[in-house]
């Protein structure tokens, strides 16, 4: 078994180790945080692994949105490469991890259709594609060109996204809100992700559960809190809009939040390492909670778990997943940075939102 694991994961592990060393260093982050404007950010990034991607922008199209798109191109390439090199048994879960971006793309496409945006405007809000994408750019363009959410959904029949969307369409048409469509997509996506996770065995299952399970927990917990504190949904609605499974966060926790229990004490019990988080004090029952701080704290916790994956026996799916998640959060940090710098925000306004450790370290 161990020999099989070594043979299956040796190449992807070696390549991931190589790619992992190309993360943005604390020095680079410090320089990026100190950069005066967007142009300096671009010039600093040109000397990093993102450089070749940013070079691809024609001179007359250098905008923050385009820069974000190009940095995401690296994320797509990294996903494509890791999926390609991973053994068959790991591939399905990695593919489903990638499909979270397709879910985001579908949401962006629907929003574009609702606002009457042209394809040129929508295009660079989407994630770039790689060879494993289910929806091509042409598919998404066709959706935008229909000009109608209902027709757009019809155009993707045959994909796993169609069934949940087609059934939620009635509510969209009755309420003229994208909320039911987006929630239906999120729930269906997480159910498939969980099923895929359940098919893994042995070390793969253990490590994937730790990381992907934590990711699912994080979303589920934040949804429950958000639905209660911000959307003021009923107990039954919160239960129906959340997931009945999780790694550390189980159904009873979600039900307790839905029923009005003290959120801070539930979070403290679930994550004792976050017990000192100041934001928890404001997470009272029914209170409008500063969810942003809790979200960032949970994301940092996940990133720390990803870094820890790189210590110890390496021939399992945990290494590629950990690398992809770290890259994703680095990419999200870059998006925050680029948008903040192009809007001339002060460092104190956006730096607390950065997640990856190197970014956090450089803030000290």
């Amino acid at each position: 078994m161990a020999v099989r694991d070594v043979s299956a994961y040796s190449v992807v592990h070696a390549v991931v180790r190589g790619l992992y060393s190309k993360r943005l260093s604390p020095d680079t982050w410090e320089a990026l945080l100190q950069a005066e404007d967007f142009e300096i950010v671009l010039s600093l990034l040109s000397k990093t692994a993102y450089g070749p991607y940013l070079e691809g922008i024609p001179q007359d199209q250098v905008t923050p949105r385009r820069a974000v798109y190009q940095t995401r191109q690296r994320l797509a390439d990294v996903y494509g490469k890791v999926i390609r090199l991973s053994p068959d048994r790991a591939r399905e879960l990695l593919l489903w991890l990638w499909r979270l971006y397709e879910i985001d793309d579908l949401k962006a496409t629907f929003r574009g259709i609702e606002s009457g945006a042209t394809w040129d405007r929508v295009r660079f809000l989407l994630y770039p594609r790689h060879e494993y994408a289910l929806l091509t750019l042409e598919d998404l363009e066709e959706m935008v060109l229909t000009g109608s959410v209902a027709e757009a959904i019809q155009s993707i029949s045959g994909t796993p996204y169609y069934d949940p969307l087609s059934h939620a369409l009635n509510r969209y048409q009755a309420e003229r809100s994208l909320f039911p469509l987006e929630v239906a997509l999120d729930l269906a996506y997480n159910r498939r992700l969980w099923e895929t996770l359940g098919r893994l065995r042995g070390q793969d299952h253990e490590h994937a559960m730790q990381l992907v399970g934590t990711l699912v927990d994080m979303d589920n917990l934040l949804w429950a809190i958000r639905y209660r504190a911000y959307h003021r949904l009923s107990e039954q609605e919160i239960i129906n809009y959340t997931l009945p499974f999780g790694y550390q966060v189980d159904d009873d926790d979600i039900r307790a939040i839905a029923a009005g229990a003290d959120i801070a004490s539930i979070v403290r019990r679930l994550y004792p390492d976050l017990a000192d988080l100041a934001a928890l004090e404001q997470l009272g029952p029914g209170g409008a909670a500063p969810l942003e701080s809790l979200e960032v704290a949970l994301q940092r916790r996940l990133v720390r778990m990803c870094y820890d994956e790189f210590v110890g026996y390496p021939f399992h799916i945990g290494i590629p997943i950990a690398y992809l998640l770290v890259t994703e959060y680095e990419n999200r940090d870059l998006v925050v940075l680029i948008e903040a710098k192009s809007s001339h925000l002060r460092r104190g306004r956006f730096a607390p939102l950065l997640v990856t450790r190197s970014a956090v370290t450089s803030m000290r």
Partner: protein
Amino acid sequence: MFRPETMKKVELVVPDSIVVPVTEALAASHVFHPAASHLPQGDHTAPGGEDWREQATTFANLERRVLAVMEDLGASEGLPPDETPHLIEPEVARVDLERLEEQVEGPVRKLEEQQERLKGLQEYVRQLQTIADLEIELEGLRNHRYLYTLMGTMPTVNLQRLRSSLDIIPSVLVEMDRHGHLATVILFGAQRDAEILDRAARSAYLNPLDLPETYRGTPAEVLEALHAGIERTRRRIGEYEAAIRHLHQARIDHLRHLLWRIRASHTIVETIARYGQLRNRYVVIRVIEGWVPESQIPVLEKQMADLSDQVALKTSAPEKQDEADVPVALNNPPLLKPFQDLVTNYGYPSYYESDPTLVTALTFSLLFGAMFGDVGHGLLLVVAGVLLIAIQSLRFPRSLRDVAPLLIACGATGIVFGFLYGSLFGFEHLIQPLWLRPVEGIQTILIGTVAAGAVLLSLGMVYNIVNALLAGDLSRLLFGHNGLSGLVFYWSLLGVVVGRFIDPFPIPSGVLLALAAICGAMLMLDEILANLVSGRRPLTREGWTSSLVEGFFMLFETGISLFSNTISFVRVGAFAVAHGALGLVILILASRVGPAQGAGYWTVVALGNLVLVAFEGLIVAIQTLRLEYYEFFGKFFSGSGVRYKPLTLLPREQ
């Protein structure tokens, strides 16, 4: 035959005023492969004031709209017209199209409304059928004073969640029916909890049965009314379909003409948009760049000279830095066409790569024949191939006729191996084997085919070395995993294995192991050595530790790949054995059906052989393709070339 056709780079300099006729003439020449210009494309506008790029977008939108109208009418695109259309003004096309859209829109929209209505009515019927036997008034069910009821459909995956969300609310959720991923349900509860129940049902995506108030009575009575409504709707649908059929007949030629003209115009403006531009204060000059086979240059020169004396044409040989852009035209005789298709299905060779079509034809046929060795079965394939070519009157599809040479070649090698194996339609006693019967010499044939596989893999690596030489890529030649180091590494390891069984072996195993170790180290350090030889610095991008770790694992991967690639050829022997064994099975079955070797016996033999040829032939073809693509091509063929695709305005010209 071993190299793609020699290409020339062509540069045409033309005044802007004749750019459209020049582009049309280039398309008519059927030899010009356009390339993006290295000069700036400028902001020059097309007639009508639009930028060429914008005009291309306009034509793309117009094409989409014409296709939408054709789809509404159920009209196909039809064949392209005989005469190549000229550029049309976008405004003219738009006005024409809008008129057509207006005519079609009315009946199509009404038809869609009725179809939607029919779907809704059928959905009501499906849901109501689950409670058809209930003797209650539906409006009563809707308007109870104390009882809350809600009937509808919801995703089955949400059922359990909805039930559990209502744990503390007095309620019952009854599942009446399932249809795919949806369930028909009725939710009962107390009227005082109506708001909670409504919100819970909505959040579980329970879509209520929204029966119009006009449908009253018991479920059975409502169903009757619904069926009557369905009948009426179907009649209306029939009427609108007739109107659309009439429109189809009246407008089809017009629509097709417009579609092809817009498509040709789209190609013209899209091509022009990629031309370079030189301008001074008074004149705008367009610079058109592309590729033409050397043999066709006179054709193009004559075409341009006939068109205008204002066209300046310059040709030059491709330079090394053009490698990625030079299109590749393969130049093989028609008999090799199906094998060329196998190659291009994988990818086009780059301009400086050799064309592997001939070697593919030989290896594909040999591998197929070795797995499918039977004189009779091979003969059947040959006959099928000859018939496909000879009987033109049967009008086989062109794609099927193209396969004929492949069938003949594979059949012929099947016959040769049939004689080697001594097999004729599964009978193993009619002819003496020139080599051995696979079922009687399993070990020999398995070892033999693995050895043949090693030869084929080595041939692939030699091919890669030749390609590296042609491309002048020294590092790939010396240190590539399929270059000289890889080849010597492979042969050394093979030598060590073979030496175990042959005594005395001419080369001592110590020497072979030392050679393998040296070449292994070169493979591990390939990136560093390549940078050293080519003078690139730094020697490693990722740092020494990272490079060495990655190099070690890549060497590990190379070793495993070479081993698995070689062992993969054991399937050739296994299929040869299976082919013989299946032949025997047919004979055993036939003797059970007709022990006296009468009509029953020969019927089973004939049918069994036909099934064997059809199914096993297909499986063997797939296995052969797999060996060619993954084991053989993977060693030398990048498939990164660009196909030579002359500019055309209509698809039939390609």
